[in-house]
């Protein structure tokens, strides 16, 4: 059985400055399968919380449409339609975006433009799909640059324990690189014991209790797992 989940929590710095959560996420299930998306609006842009919501809405639209795009055509489609949503005046709305969807058999696509982390366990093997970055923290490419796609791939979630996790940089930057597989497993183990609502509550609590000193960024995670 495929299950999808997600949660987001505003970062302490945005809360302090009375700014909205600039991250957004979407989880949707239909006869076509399961889809998740996360987006992280740029802190330096005034309406990036609107830009991030627009991005995840487009992922859902594409998933639910009758279009059958090759994985390499997803990023250009998202970029083009996201810019069009703002009549090509998108500078104030810049955002990153990570997406993944699979059909009922677990076959699908995943991709990423901008920072964050895309983790997958496919046919029992764990992979960090996001390449190592030469940027510093909070320096990122955005959805307006379709050529900046960092990950674009077909995915297969075929056996129990397989899954895909999408994480914004508020979480990704504070995870120990050598612990990513264990982090993935911990999330899977929790999801296999909780229902959707309990999972969301647990994730929110974990993000509220984040322990990295001086952490300030919004935090968002979403994923799809195949469970027993």
């Amino acid at each position, binding site marked *: 059985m495929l299950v999808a989940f997600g949660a987001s929590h505003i970062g302490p710095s945005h809360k302090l400055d009375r700014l909205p959560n600039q991250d957004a996420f979407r989880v949707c299930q239909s006869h076509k399968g399961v889809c998740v998306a996360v987006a992280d609006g740029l802190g*330096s842009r005034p309406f990036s919380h609107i830009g991030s919501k627009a991005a995840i809405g487009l992922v859902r639209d594409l998933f639910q449409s009758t279009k059958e795009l090759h994985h390499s055509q997803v990023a250009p489609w998202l970029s083009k339609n996201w810019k069009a949503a703002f009549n090509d005046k998108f500078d104030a709305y810049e955002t990153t975006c990570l997406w993944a969807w699979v059909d009922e058999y677990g076959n699908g696509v995943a991709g990423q433009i901008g920072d964050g982390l895309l983790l997958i366990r496919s046919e029992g093997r764990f992979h960090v799909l996001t390449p*190592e970055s030469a940027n510093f923290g*909070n320096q990122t490419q955005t959805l307006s640059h379709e050529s900046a796609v960092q990950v674009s791939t077909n995915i297969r979630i075929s056996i129990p324990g397989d899954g895909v996790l999408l994480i914004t940089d508020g979480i990704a*930057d504070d*995870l*120990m690189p050598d612990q990513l597989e264990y982090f993935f497993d911990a999330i899977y183990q929790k999801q296999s014991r909780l229902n959707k609502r309990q999972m969301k509550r647990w994730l929110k609590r*974990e993000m509220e209790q984040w322990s990295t000193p001086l952490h300030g960024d919004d935090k968002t995670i979403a994923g799809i797992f195949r469970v027993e």
Partner: protein
Amino acid sequence: MSDLKKFQVQNARPLPVIVLADTSASMSEDGNIGVLNGCLKEMIASFATESRLRAEIHVSVIAFGGDNAEIILPLTPAHQVEGDLQLKAEGMTPLGSALTLASGLIENKELIPSRAYKPLVILLSYGYPNDVWEGPFERFQRDERSSKVTRFAMAIGPAADEEMLSDFANDPEAPLFRGENARDIHRFFRAVTMSVSARSQSAKPNQSTPLQIPENNDEDWEF
């Protein structure tokens, strides 16, 4: 109790500040080296007492005088810096050597992890380097990570080599600051301290804040 804490980094994100200080013999004029030592001490003390709201300021000082540049202070959290720096003015101006050391520091992901905020590199000099500096400067501007840092520069003295120093300064909010004397060195450091402190407390620590040089009639600059 958190189930995910064991996967989380337990160090704050650093905001690296690297000072490239000209300690050639020219710096002994007008007591400039003494003022530079005092300014560095005051800046580090100020960083150490910041509330560390968003980022932890880490400082490194690379002195270039004599035959080669030297890392006087390895990158260290400001609140952990112990003792005073006692830079001495002597010899030539090996800027190329200093840039090579700074590049090595910035490109090293063990010392400056990818999660660090964008580093700030501050150059104070009379200019007129007399080692091979063009190649190291070109690499500094081109290399994967050092090309992304913010660079401030101060030209010391009326005869300073402004062309080279202007090329170094790359932040539109902070063009080359031209100083003539010890008081100007202090004004520059106060502006840098305020700019870095503002970044460390901002919700957007990567975003530059304008370098606002205090008025020349400011008092309270004795050490």
